[in-house]
């Protein structure tokens, strides 16, 4: 069977390891997001800034409504979800931590939790598992790196590249640039105009999918 990890261990200093796209320590430092919406949320948190909140609201409320219409198929419930979500964004703004993710991620998780608890309360049968149980809002303690991105790039590309086409398009694009065109994470971020954190997270997601694909081909 394949053993990517041990191959790497015997070959700790191959040039491949220094290829673009391989993680280095400073690339692993948490990225502090500083976009329009992240800044707006910080203003809301620190200064209770109503202008910044109004901007967030006028962008996200109509999109949340569309999301709610899709989920509930009912305008009244969709609006209730928008109201509860945006109220939480206002009340809890200081819980937003730009080193953990984008403003859009945070707003999405609030909307998901609101929607989940709305559905739960509307069900006729009693259901006591709440969004608070299911989705932890805090930081998990830092863990030792599992070493999942310290493989030999060359070996990996050879095995994985044939499966790139099965990836969701956004992930495929990043993988092609990093592993086939050998661009650095930063270059890919600049080229695609997406945050560095998004490049890294798409690589991690793609690698997990590819591992599943590899596993399927062998069973």
């Amino acid at each position, binding site marked *: 069977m394949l053993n990517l990890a041990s191959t790497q261990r015997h070959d700790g200093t191959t040039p491949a390891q220094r290829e673009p796209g391989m993680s280095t320590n400073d690339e692993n430092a948490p990225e502090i997001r500083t976009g329009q919406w992240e800044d707006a949320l910080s203003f809301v948190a620190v200064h209770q800034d109503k202008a910044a909140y109004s901007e967030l609201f006028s962008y996200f*409320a*109509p999109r949340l409504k569309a999301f709610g219409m899709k989920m509930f198929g009912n305008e009244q419930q969709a609006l209730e979800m928008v109201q509860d979500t*945006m109220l939480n964004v206002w009340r809890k703004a200081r*819980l937003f931590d730009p080193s953990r993710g984008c403003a859009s991620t945070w707003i999405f998780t609030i909307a998901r939790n609101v929607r989940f608890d709305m559905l739960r309360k509307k069900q006729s049968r009693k259901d006591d598992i709440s*969004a608070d149980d299911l989705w932890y809002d805090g930081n998990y303690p830092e863990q030792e790196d599992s070493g999942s991105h310290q493989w030999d790039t060359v070996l990996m590309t050879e095995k994985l590249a044939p499966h790139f086409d099965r990836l969701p398009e956004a992930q495929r694009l990043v993988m092609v640039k990093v592993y086939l065109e050998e661009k650095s994470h930063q270059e890919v971020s600049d080229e695609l105009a997406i945050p560095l954190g998004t490049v890294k997270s798409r690589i991690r997601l793609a690698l997990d999918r590819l591992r599943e694909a590899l596993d399927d081909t062998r069973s």
Partner: protein
Amino acid sequence: MTHAVKYHPGIPLLEQYVEGTLEADVALAVSAHIDLCPHCQQLCLDLSAEQGLMLEKSAPAAELDATDLDQMLADIMAQPQWNGRELNTQPQGPVQVQLKDKTFTVPRALARLVEQQTKWTQLGSIANAKLPAGDKRHVSLLYIDKDTAIPQHTHKGLEITLVLSGRIVDEKGSYGVGDILINTPDDTHTPRTLPDEDCLCLSVLSAPLQFNKGITRLLNPLQHLFY
């Protein structure tokens, strides 16, 4: 953590968990796994980021009543923002459960339910405590003494077992803390504990209708590649 988790929920399950579309009892088992698994913690952050971007890039609702939204905006900003204690209502960490003279640690996801109720029913070398997850839900803590086979029962949905303490083994593998086992009604393996080690698990029996759509991969057996 010295033990590396080897059996993870497959990506389709994690995706549905992150979207909030997974049935609550199955989501609870996935959530408890995530509490124990740094790998899946990271994957879920990444999947949430993708969902967030989709929301950000999505089209606004077509039919919008501007005065409705203006009113909503004004109502919200008239409310006070929160500080301090009211901001965090969630259980923040694992909790302990007692069974006779033994103490076990269970993950944060189960903390609230476990603190509401843990009444053990002993049946030979197995003890069961049903958690108050709701009517018709089958979510329990299952204690299995050493050197004991887990009794088979027929069940039309999925049977999810998450190891919380100790170890169980079956014909296919050996499962330690954090490992998740997902059995469909067709699976016929017989898990048991080791001769010298007891085990505490979370057990979820899901309703049969949940998986009509067919989740192609329930498990992500990373250990084939990494261990």
